[in-house]
């Protein structure tokens, strides 16, 4: 944002207060204009470095409930499908592993949303994307404003802002596999107060086919209530206080068990009878108090106190009493005694020996995440140089209570029957982290030059106690995370940019004693083009890891006893390029052709040879590539837009990737397939306040093996069709 634009923007801040709303700002680079329900934010929306924003219009157009699908159109972001609905997303950025999104920072409204982002970074919870108004993806040096993970970047999911007047919204949809969605929102506004309630329910019977026709779907609910009070608009110093309480729950009949290659070829959607009891349940309570004070039109402080409580229990078949390696069993079902266990797993044979009893392990977890954070944003001029300062401090505490118990079941006539083997508690631990994070960043703008320098400091105090072994570990460490960037506006339309920052991911308290935090130096350089018709970013990136870290989850293929542990992977080089563009071409009167393109090229190389117990790495040779990182990823969208409606088609391609570290050019190394899918979305504005929509994902019903973790081949979702109706009042 240029100084002149900033000034003009700030001039309307007071007007925005009159509207008492915080509608999202206009797209980056576009002139900010006043309007009903709009507030001008002084947050720097154009930091140097790669950044992407998925706005409300795009989110509503795609009608996705799955964060994977939303982010699949963003260059530099990798997603690894698992359940087909994005219930537990696997998102990585710029080479950072996607497993449970543990290497990136995910927030809702600037607040860490994960169950325990420091102690247990695996994101078994992410906010419902369907209730978001925009999603901000920050990569490059600007990522140091967010933490704890700064290697890949940060994703901030911005929920629906408080509207400026009484309003209501309803979205009802249904589709294949008995998909159903109800999304309702209502808000009431007074002169100095506001109240908004929101409810979302999603449900489906699932696309997987259990051999006994059991339900493989899920249902989830999300309800929130937000209240707001403000100071009088005439006050010189303006205050705003938001109080929010939210509750969510989910019951999903999800499994970690996939298929053998032979069974996958016959029916990719099949699910073995051994997984018939698999189910995840969770509930989450969220309390948040947000205060904003605007000291003047160029100085703002946002302070948020938050507390999240998340409890989940996921019971799923993990193996047999006599064969705990379910991954190996499904990978080689004919090998040795595996054929016996395979017959039982599929229900083709009954359990006939104690060793053939199935183990259903339940990972029972309780997480607490709470803290207070305050962020200062101000703009000042020192002579010809304009400053945009962003500084913040956060004191955060999170805790993970992990328990795991195992029950044994006999397969008898296709039914799982609880055996006499008593329940075994195999894990009972508590881990917690108290973290202080401070950051400061200044963007200096002088003529056509923008220079950004920032520093983040994280100080972590952690402890871990294993109640079974009575092992106790504690420690404290800190890390400085510098970052800086430079942008030169060659013309009003074309800029060159470059940046460097340190990447960091904390070591989990449960990690073995000599595991080091993940550390890297990340570089980027590229060009940015903006005019009325075209936006285009072409950016290259390099990440030099001094120590790549592998985090053990069952999802990543680790055993239950290894879960929570972390492994050192040593030096790794990641490099690649991103191309992100969008354009709208007028076709005829009131008819527009919108185009979008996102392409990511990624290469990775281990720089040392070692043998790892981390399932995703195994025996690593110098030059081996990281698993589950496609070299090529492309998303292209074209459509026709008219005031009465819009039709879009999106093609997405992802090249094949390795299942464990190895060489893509070595056909012997196990891998997952490349995938090309097409999606259609159509919207018809039947009234000014109502619209009908229809979506079809995976139009050609193409299914490939997209993951072999944790246990066997798993497909991407098949063709799914949804129709819905939306109304705004």
């Amino acid at each position, binding site marked *: 944002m240029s100084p002149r634009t900033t000034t003009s923007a700030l001039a309307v801040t007071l007007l925005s207060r009159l509207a008492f709303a915080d509608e999202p700002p206009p797209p980056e680079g576009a002139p900010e204009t006043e309007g009903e329900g709009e507030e001008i934010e002084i947050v720097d929306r154009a930091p140097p470095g790669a950044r992407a924003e998925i706005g409300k219009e795009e989110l509503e157009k795609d009608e996705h409930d799955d964060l994977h699908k939303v982010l699949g159109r963003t260059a530099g972001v990798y997603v690894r499908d698992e359940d087909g609905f994005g219930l537990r997303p696997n998102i990585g950025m710029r080479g950072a592993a996607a497993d449970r999104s543990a290497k990136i920072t995910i927030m809702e409204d600037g607040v860490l949303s994960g169950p325990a982002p420091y102690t247990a970074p695996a994101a078994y919870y992410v906010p419902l994307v369907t209730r978001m108004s925009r999603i901000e993806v920050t990569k490059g040096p600007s990522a140091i404003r967010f933490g704890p993970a700064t290697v890949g970047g940060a994703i901030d999911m911005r929920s629906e802002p408080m509207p400026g007047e009484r309003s209501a919204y309803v979205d009802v949809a249904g589709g294949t596999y008995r998909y159903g969605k109800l999304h309702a929102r209502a808000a009431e506004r007074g002169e100095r107060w506001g109240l908004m309630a929101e409810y979302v329910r999603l449900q489906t019977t699932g696309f997987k086919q259990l051999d006994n026709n059991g339900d493989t779907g899920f249902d989830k609910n999300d309800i929130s209530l937000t209240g707001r009070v403000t100071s009088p608009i005439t006050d010189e110093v303006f205050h705003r206080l938001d109080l929010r309480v939210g509750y969510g729950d989910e019951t999903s009949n999800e499994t970690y068990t996939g298929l053998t290659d032979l069974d996958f070829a016959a029916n990719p959607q099949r699910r073995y009878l051994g997984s018939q009891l698999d189910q995840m349940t969770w509930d989450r309570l969220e309390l948040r108090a947000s205060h904003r004070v605007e000291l003047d039109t160029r100085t703002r402080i946002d302070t948020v106190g938050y507390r999240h409580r998340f409890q989940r229990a996921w019971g799923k078949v993990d193996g047999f009493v006599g064969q705990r390696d379910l991954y190996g069993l499904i990978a080689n079902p004919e090998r040795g*005694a595996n054929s016996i266990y395979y017959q039982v797993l599929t229900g083709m044979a009954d359990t*006939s020996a104690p*060793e053939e009893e199935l183990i259903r392990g339940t990972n029972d977890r309780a997480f607490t995440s709470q803290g207070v954070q305050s962020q200062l944003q101000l703009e000042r001029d020192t002579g010809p140089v304009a400053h945009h300062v962003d500084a913040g401090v956060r004191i955060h505490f999170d805790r993970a209570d992990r328990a795991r118990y195992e029950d*044994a079941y006999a397969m008898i006539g296709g039914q799982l029957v609880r055996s006499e*083997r008593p329940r075994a508690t195999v894990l009972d631990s508590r881990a917690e982290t108290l973290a202080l994070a401070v950051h400061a960043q200044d963007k200096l703008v002088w003529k056509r030059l923008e220079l950004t320098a920032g520093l983040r400091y994280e100080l972590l105090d952690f402890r871990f106690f294993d109640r079974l072994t009575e092992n106790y570990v504690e420690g404290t460490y800190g890390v400085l995370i510098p970052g800086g960037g430079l942008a030169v506006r060659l013309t009003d339309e074309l800029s060159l940019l470059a940046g460097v920052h340190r990447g960091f991911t904390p070591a989990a308290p449960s990690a073995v004693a000599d595991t080091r935090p993940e550390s890297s130096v990340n570089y980027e350089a590229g060009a940015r083009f903006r005019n009325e018709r075209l936006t285009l970013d072409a950016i290259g990136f390099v990440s030099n890891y001094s120590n790549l870290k592998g985090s053990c989850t069952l999802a990543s293929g680790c055993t239950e006893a290894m879960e929570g542990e972390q492994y050192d992977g040593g030096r790794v080089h990641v490099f690649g390029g991103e191309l992100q563009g969008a354009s709208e071409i007028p076709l005829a009167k009131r008819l527009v052709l919108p185009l979008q393109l996102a392409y990511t090229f990624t290469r990775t190389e281990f720089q040392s040879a070692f043998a790892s*117990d981390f399932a995703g790495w195994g025996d690593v040779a110098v030059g081996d590539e990281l698993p589950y990182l496609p070299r090529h990823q492309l998303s292209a969208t074209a459509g026709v837009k008219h005031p009465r409606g819009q039709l879009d088609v999106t093609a997405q391609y992802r090249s094949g990737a390795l299942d464990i570290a190895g060489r893509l050019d070595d056909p012997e190394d196990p891998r997952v397939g490349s995938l090309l899918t097409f999606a259609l979305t159509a919207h018809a504005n039947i009234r000014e306040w109502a619209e009908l929509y229809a979506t079809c994902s995976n139009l050609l019903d193409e299914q490939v093996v997209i993951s072999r973790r944790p246990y066997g081949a798993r497909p991407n979702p098949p063709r799914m069709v949804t129709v819905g109706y939306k109304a705004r009042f």
Partner: protein
Amino acid sequence: MRFVAPLLALTAACDSPAPITGKDAPSDDVFDRPAMLGHLATNLLVPMQHDVAVKTAALATALGAHCDALDLDVTASPVAARAAFADAIDAWQSADALVFGPAAMDGNVLRDRIYSWPLLAPCNVDKDTAASSFAIADKPINQRSLTAIEYLLYPPSTASLCPIEPANWPQLDKPRARCRHALAIAQDVAQNAAALETAWQAYATELPAMGHAGVNLVSDAMFYSDTMVKDMKLGEAAGIVVNACGTAGEICEREVELRFSDRGTFALRRNLATLRAAFTGTTTSADGPSFDDFLRAVDQGAMADRMVAHIDATIAKLAALPDSYLGALTTKYAEVAATHAALREFTTELKSQFSAVLVLEIPDDVATDND
């Protein structure tokens, strides 16, 4: 809260790189690993495979004779056939305690074809018997091997163990049918035992050249004493650890090895004898280098003595147990528990200091044991 630590010092500390440690790090000791492997192959492993081949062939012969006798007289005594089974299973129990190499390849396929315990599907065996379905090579491993032969030679009764009796079970001439079934399996076992012996003769020449990796194969195989002997044969059967019956401190018959023939004690004695031979290098034919000498070569003589003492203590307790393991589990529970405890002393050291000192990987399935 310990936020008082100097910030810069903490930052510097977290930045300091540390080397990656690997279990295959080269060792600078002078212990002669090829000599150890050569000695064990020549004087322990190959002779054990030969014994199995001889005894399983004899079992097939004895079963053939028994089946012929049954054809003449349905009351013919199975004593000779059972004695041949005892010889064969004892021979295998010696070998089973140190399975690696050819027997362990391709998911233990040869091992399981000879002896598949703990996998046995008695009902399916009954169905095969009833249907005279004796194409053994096509059968799953829990319907073949010495495990199934034991069931056929020592049937608990004339009844089938199927929830629903096989169609022609009442009319079946069970002694003759079971014998013919056992004979077919025994012939398959003998073929596989012969194949294993042949494979071992070749493998024995390659083993010494494997060096440290070969030593690790032997140490991996010794973990049989932990997972199979301590945990399963002793712990689960006696209710010392969680078992399929949900019992604590009392017998769980379903978990008892060789429960039909009640030769569990003999099996345990054979297992421990092999463990001792492998650990000390003292076999019936020669004394040579092995793990105790390796430990002494790295100045861990005390550990070697301690571990041998633990093995000897276990062997002594097994010798004092009744020959009937079912009887021991019922009337001598304390002695069985003491045997378990004695062996645990050895296995605890095996999976901790022993592996660390000799820079040996431990198998994945025991690496996370909470013992």
